[in-house]
């Protein structure tokens, strides 16, 4: 199994490369379209269903600055495949170059345990956990912008900050269950 390495390649000038990993391959497309709208920086988006990435485009693949795992809470499979894919990442990525993006968190059909397990996962890896409204265009653009904010930092385009620094500020923490009876 080939590990994806964060520092094996040199960064391009004024460019940032992001890898979106989503099992369903639905949200990532619209997200990518929103991401490449960015004009200040040239953003290259790589889409994948799962890791490891195929060997053949090993050489033309740029250095990946941020890996985003998109997890759709409505399906267990989505979470499982993300979990499996994590194993194919070099540990170097976990110094602030990985983040999770969760969709359908507000969906009624989602069991709370699933969200909790995602939280636990993100917390155990010290990664930020973002929530996104993938249904509405506004939600998509917003999600893209948030990813860009992180991406710019991880690609070293923001002076005086590093990926690790940011991830220390934004990383997910497992909240002790605040599930009291809610309306009293």
């Amino acid at each position, binding site marked *: 199994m080939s590990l994806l390495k964060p520092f094996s390649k040199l960064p391009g000038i004024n460019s940032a490369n992001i890898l979106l990993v989503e099992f369903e391959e639905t949200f990532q497309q619209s997200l990518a379209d929103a991401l490449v709208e960015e004009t200040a920086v*040239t953003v290259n988006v*790589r889409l994948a269903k799962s890791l490891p990435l195929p060997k053949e485009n090993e050489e033309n693949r740029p250095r990946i600055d941020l890996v985003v795992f998109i997890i759709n809470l409505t399906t267990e499979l989505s979470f499982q495949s993300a979990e499996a894919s994590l194993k194919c990442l070099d540990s170097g990525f976990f110094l602030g170059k990985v983040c999770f993006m969760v969709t359908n968190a507000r969906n009624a059909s989602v069991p709370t345990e699933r969200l909790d397990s995602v939280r636990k996962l993100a917390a155990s890896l010290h990664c930020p956990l973002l929530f996104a409204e993938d249904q509405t265009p506004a939600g998509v653009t917003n999600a893209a912008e948030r990813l860009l904010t992180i991406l710019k930092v991880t690609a070293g385009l923001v002076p005086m900050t590093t990926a690790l620094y940011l991830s220390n500020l934004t990383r997910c923490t497992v909240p002790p269950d605040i599930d009291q009876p809610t309306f009293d």
Partner: protein
Amino acid sequence: MGDSTKSLLQRIIRRIPSRAIESTLRKWGRLTAEQLQSIDFTQPKWTVTQELLDMCEEGNWTLKFITELEMSYIIDNPNQGMWYAYQLMNPEDDANSVELTQFKEQFKSHLKQLVRHISLKMKKHTDEAVWIRIAWGDRFFQPNHMKPTYAVHYLQTPYVFVTSLTSKHKPLFSQAMTLSTRYQAIKDANLSGRNLTAIRDLLMRQFQQAFPTKHPSPLAERNQTVSHPRIEKEQDGNAANRLELACEAFGGGTLPQLQSAVYKLETKFRDQTNKAMTEREESFKCIVKFASTNLLESLRHCASSGFASTPVTPLLSSISLKGKNYFVITDNSPGAASQPRRAQDK
């Protein structure tokens, strides 16, 4: 007699949803224009029924009329009961030259010989289909019009579609059918569903199947997504590949609306982790049922989106391939033990 007629009429009207009543009656064509005028279809259904019953009284309609009404209604919306497909086997040489009139009287005569009291009604639909309505009686009882059997047959094809046929009458029906269509045997085609057209299309190969050809296939063109130069798909190839395989397995375009597929497993339980079950001598029996509003669609989506592994297991693909949705899996069939279990947890 009149009483039964009325009750039958009542029953039929009850089955027809109130918005469809008017159109159905018009189609039926037994009501005069002014009669139709006189009925106010906005008022609650049972009042309409009352009025119809009165008309039935004064017009003293025969049972024939009523059965006509029922038949025309059923033909227009057949998706009510469960439809079962039967296949006629090894035809005589003149099986292909059977024609309608001959078939009709043959069928009638054969059935009449078998059962004394029976009421038959045949009608050729616009799409060459022969619709048969059978109200069964027996030696002592008048034919029961309350639960008639409906059968649909296309001449020169080896398939018959039947609904609400009791096991008691099945042999009679089969015999009459085989004889009158000049075949030698009839067997259950292991295909059933609520949607008549669906199972018909499935058996008669009237749905669009995807075949590998030299010409660019429509679906290849369909998923040509014009992508931004800076967006790169890592695993692009296998997505398209998956879709193609899925379409080859289940067909392209819109698929017949099948509701369910049933797998009856009588296989040896193989699972290293579970010794107790594995060691048991007698085979492990269980039934796996897939249900959906449109099973084939969902299966195809499963395969194309990678939920199910591709190439699709023969167990699933043979639904559309063999035109069956009931399978009995025994150990001699290859890989039967492993695949069903995957099927289960999907």
